């Protein structure tokens, strides 16, 4: 991967709050273009990682490089290339929608007012309404329109649909994916639900207990992993550390392995694994430092 193809690179990034480490040893290289999902349970450190990426927080250890620039420098040029939609899509509640757009215009080097107005008109959101009086879904759309009007190269969204009802959720994702299709923006978003990710995402980062436990291109990850089902056995079946998880049923043992698809032993049946099962298996793994972090494959 050359520098121009890298949207984001973190090296040994950690963040310590007064209560302890929220994020440790996070080393990632994420490709430009496409959609990256950051998945993890609540409290895994997703928000912390995203805030570090957009420069809202400074890392306690390590470095964060976005589009080839150190984000802690926070120059207007770097800031204008990153769009951010925070959790619960905050807006100035007493501003009208038009004033929110004026805010975006006043605070950015480039701001595509026409684009934002067209998007909002299409969604039927009136410009003279106060942001606080809009529905949650509409507020999320206004926040998204603001972020997209910056024409960012990297768009970061923190749990963008978590607070929306199913209808608004679908509408929001449609607009988002439409925007991705339109231009060469890289989208990084966090989510605690794995459901439906397969359809919209190209790349996956799994975060658990403040550590990255899995990262890679989704197609590659699915090709590398598979389920092996065989007779129940208690012996150690780990061939060269390839077993991610072993589940023992009454009569059968199911192994999730990452072995790149070498022929299965006699008596064992190989099955492809779904993305949700894959992610859940990694989330269930104990989080002892080092051991749970497989080496980077896709990058």
């Amino acid at each position, binding site marked *: 991967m050359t520098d121009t193809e890298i949207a984001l690179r973190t090296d040994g990034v950690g963040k310590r709050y007064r209560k302890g480490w929220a994020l440790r040893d996070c080393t990632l290289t994420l490709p430009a273009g496409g959609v990256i999902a950051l998945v993890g349970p609540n409290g895994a450190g997703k928000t912390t990682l995203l805030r570090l990426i957009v420069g809202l927080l400074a890392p306690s250890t390590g470095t964060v490089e976005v589009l080839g620039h150190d984000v802690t420098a926070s120059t207007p040029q770097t800031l204008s290339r990153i769009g951010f939609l925070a959790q619960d899509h905050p807006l100035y509640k007493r501003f009208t929608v038009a004033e929110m757009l004026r805010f975006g215009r*006043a*605070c950015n080097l480039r701001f595509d007012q026409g684009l934002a107005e067209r998007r909002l008109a299409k969604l039927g959101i009136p410009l003279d309404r106060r942001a606080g009086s809009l529905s949650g879904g509409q507020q999320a759309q206004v926040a998204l329109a603001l972020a997209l009007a910056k024409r960012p190269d990297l768009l970061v969204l923190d749990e963008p649909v978590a607070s929306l009802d199913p209808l608004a959720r679908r509408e929001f994702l449609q607009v988002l994916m439409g925007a991705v299709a339109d231009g060469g923006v890289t989208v990084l978003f966090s989510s605690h639900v794995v459901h439906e990710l397969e359809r919209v995402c190209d790349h996956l980062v799994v975060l658990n207990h403040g550590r990255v436990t899995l990262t890679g291109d989704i197609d590659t990850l699915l090709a590398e992993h598979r389920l092996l089902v065989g007779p129940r056995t208690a012996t150690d079946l780990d061939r060269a550390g390839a077993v991610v998880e072993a589940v023992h049923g009454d009569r059968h043992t199911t192994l999730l392995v990452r072995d790149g698809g070498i022929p299965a032993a006699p008596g064992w049946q190989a099955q492809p694994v779904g993305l949700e099962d894959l992610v859940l298996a990694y989330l269930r793994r104990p989080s002892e430092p080092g051991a749970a972090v497989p080496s980077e494959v896709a990058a």
Partner: protein
Amino acid sequence: MTWLIWRQHRTEVCVLGLLLGVFGIALLVLGTQAHDLFPGGPARCAGTAGAGETCTAAFRRLDEEYGYVENLLAAFYLVPVVIGAFLGAPLLARELEDGTWQLAWTQAVPRMRWLVAKLAALAGVTVALTGMFTAVLTWFRQPFDAWEGRFQYDAFDLEGLVPLAYALFAFGVATAAGAILRRSLPAFGVAFGAFLAARMSVALLARPAYATPLTTMEPVPAGGTKGQAGAGVADWVIERGYADAAGRRLSSTEYYELEDAANQAGTNLSQFLHERGIQRFGVYHPADRFWTFQLIEAAVFVAVAAILIGVVVWRVRRRVI
């Protein structure tokens, strides 16, 4: 940025402007009437000239007709804290409690530029509003000041430079509290409490010590109680009392014993004290130290404000918030 700052803070600025405008106009109207009692201006009756017949008459009318206003002015002690805390508390706290700091600081304006612009604009408004109101108040008090000097608490604390420093101090406390507590209303409360505590302790404990006070000592006149001990009316008297012939200050019990002795002897108290060589003393700061004291007190409050603003800048710069 200018538009954004105005849009975000126009409500506070307008409410403050309206309130101060109403009070200011009332003061201007009443003040014009009070000034009219002094043909040629109240300054001509200041100091010893105030003992003249026309001046005494003017002062009497001033006291009768406008004395009540002077008592109400005490409420204006709070003007600097209302202005400073009202503008400072929401500066960061509102962004933090609404989550909009994440919106504001991810646009192309770097957070330090954002912060400096906001601090400068709102501190500027704080100084401008307080300054205008203080100018009106200082003018309004001219007749009263001619009468009692400018060193009493009800004049010194409302006039000149110190109200601006108090307002900046309140602004600094409110902004820093807002940054740390992340809530506007508690930040406002903290600023209010800190303002009262700091103002009271400085005025009562620190201010008398800005310079070494002067002391006068004179024998008790045989004739009676007429005349003050040394210091003029415009001077700031910190302490008064009695001393024996050698200049040793008498405690209150010692003085009461003398009083009892005079009663038992059936003599006039002044006469009694005079005969024993008792002296009256006064510890005071002369009136011409007014501006020195104003500068010192203003410097103290501005310095604390600067430190607090420094803490805010440090926190935002280090991305603690």
